[in-house]
């Protein structure tokens, strides 16, 4: 469904991403793992079409169901964003506009992509329920929600918009461990129910091993290893992957957290 080939992202003269290939299928979860500065988030932004807005130059190919996204007009890209590719971010409360009620953003986003007022309200309510939240929470302001609730609202938006691909940029890094588990459960459920294809970016190997099918390890902008989760994490071939695994504290080694 999602095919990335020879993706390059530059800030001025500095190249921050040089990904040769990434593939994602329906109902599949691809994890992108790396340390800070490895370019993993930037890769995600480039795929979602947000990179130029950050001042970056993008070259290469990103195909969604065969349609080339790089070089697409602004208008066409805006159609894709939200409707087909949705994103959730780290620090969920900061990702919501603080001076608007959560429902405002939600409903307007739905109507932006063609829903009627009534339709939007229905879909929003339904989506909220599917992530185990009461639709009443839509009347609240972001700072009145907990981190977990805010993240679930963001996920609900992706569900309501009926996106095909969900890109999750460190969605649980800013949350407590117990809340983390909740969010991961929600994402799992969605993968099963909506056949969501998910790109899961994280620096946390334990989380990745729990939720992802395949994984790509990034270092310094490049993908240094890729493959099914069990294989890659149990039998790493690249020295960097081995280093990463070695750095994980004993309590959460992949063997101990088989999902």
């Amino acid at each position, binding site marked *: 469904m999602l095919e990335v080939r020879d993706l390059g992202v530059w*800030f001025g003269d500095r190249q921050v991403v040089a990904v040769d290939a990434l593939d994602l299928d329906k109902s599949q979860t691809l994890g992108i793992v790396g340390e*800070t*500065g490895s370019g993993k*988030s*930037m890769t995600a932004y480039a795929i979602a079409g947000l990179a130029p*807005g*950050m*001042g970056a130059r993008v070259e290469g190919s990103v195909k969604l169901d065969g349609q080339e996204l790089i070089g697409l007009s602004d208008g066409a890209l805006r159609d894709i964003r939200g409707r087909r590719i949705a994103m959730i971010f780290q620090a969920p409360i900061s990702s919501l506009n603080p001076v608007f009620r959560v429902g405002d953003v939600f409903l307007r986003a739905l109507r932006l992509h063609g829903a009627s007022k009534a339709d939007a309200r229905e879909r929003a309510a339904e989506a909220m329920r599917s992530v185990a939240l009461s639709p009443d929470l839509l009347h609240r302001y972001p700072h009145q929600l907990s981190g977990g609730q805010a993240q679930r609202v963001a996920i609900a938006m992706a569900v309501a918009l009926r996106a095909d691909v969900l890109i999750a940029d460190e969605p649980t890094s800013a949350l407590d461990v117990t809340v983390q588990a909740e969010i991961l459960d929600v994402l799992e459920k969605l993968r099963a129910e909506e056949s969501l294809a998910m790109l899961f970016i994280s620096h946390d190997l334990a989380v990745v091993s729990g939720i992802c099918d395949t994984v790509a390890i990034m270092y310094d902008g490049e993908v240094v290893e890729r493959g099914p989760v069990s294989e890659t994490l149990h039998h790493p071939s690249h020295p960097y992957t081995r280093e990463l695994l070695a750095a994980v504290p004993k309590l959460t080694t992949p063997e101990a957290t088989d999902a």
Partner: protein
Amino acid sequence: MTAAAAPTSVPEVRTRGFARRNPTLVLGIVLLVLIVLVALAAPWLAPAPGDAGTATHPFNVLDGPSSAHPFGTDLVGRDLLTRVMYGARISLRLVVEVLLIAGLIGIPLGLIAGYFRGRVDQVIMRITDVFLAFPALLLSLAIAFVLTPSVQNMTIAIAVTWWPWYTRLVRGEAASIATRPYIESCRVLGVSHARILARHILPNSITPVLVQMSMDAGGILLTAASISFLGLGAQDPTPEWGLIVSQGAQYFATQWWFVTFAGLAILFTAIAFNLIGDGIREMLDPRRVVSR
């Protein structure tokens, strides 16, 4: 982390390309330097230095711009180019003096209020609030009036209305620094309050004030010119720019040069000050990101 352009938190003054990265600041400095040079060189460069004082030339009254008098002459025949050049000396000196006086009053008060907190803080801040509630121009006018209009008294009047801003700024900084652990340890070690204030609190609270001062310079200049324009500041024959404009106001329709050049002088000097203030603020902004 995403690879966004690294913000410059410490200003790199010595690297090449400084001009390109801080065009506003450089432009402002260049303008100001020009004005300062004119002011300093006035006694030698001006065509008729006597005209900055009490000289009168009844035969040259209200002459238009010519090679002898590039800016024309005023209502008693004095060369306006000379008067405008000497006016630079007055304005520049005034701005510096106001900032100095306002700083000497405001900064210590702010330090004391922020460091000692409690009753002292409350009292000082209420007084500051009252002064702040006063429209600056009104208060300056009142004081200038009480003290008999002159450049010196105008300077004092403006300084008296300006200090509260600095007190407030310094107090905020001082208060937050005073609660830091290393200050506590100083006290435990028996270091005197005075020493703590001077060696630790002051140096760390002063930056915002200096930045604010650079931004205030323009406003002070305009305030002074306004007060003189209303007749409560500089008096004839002092060649202060605001005064010249007020003298020329009634002749404006027919002798346009009288008002124009002095006004332009005010405009450009204020622009220079404001550009410098903006430039410094931009340079010190820790969130400076050079993106689209």
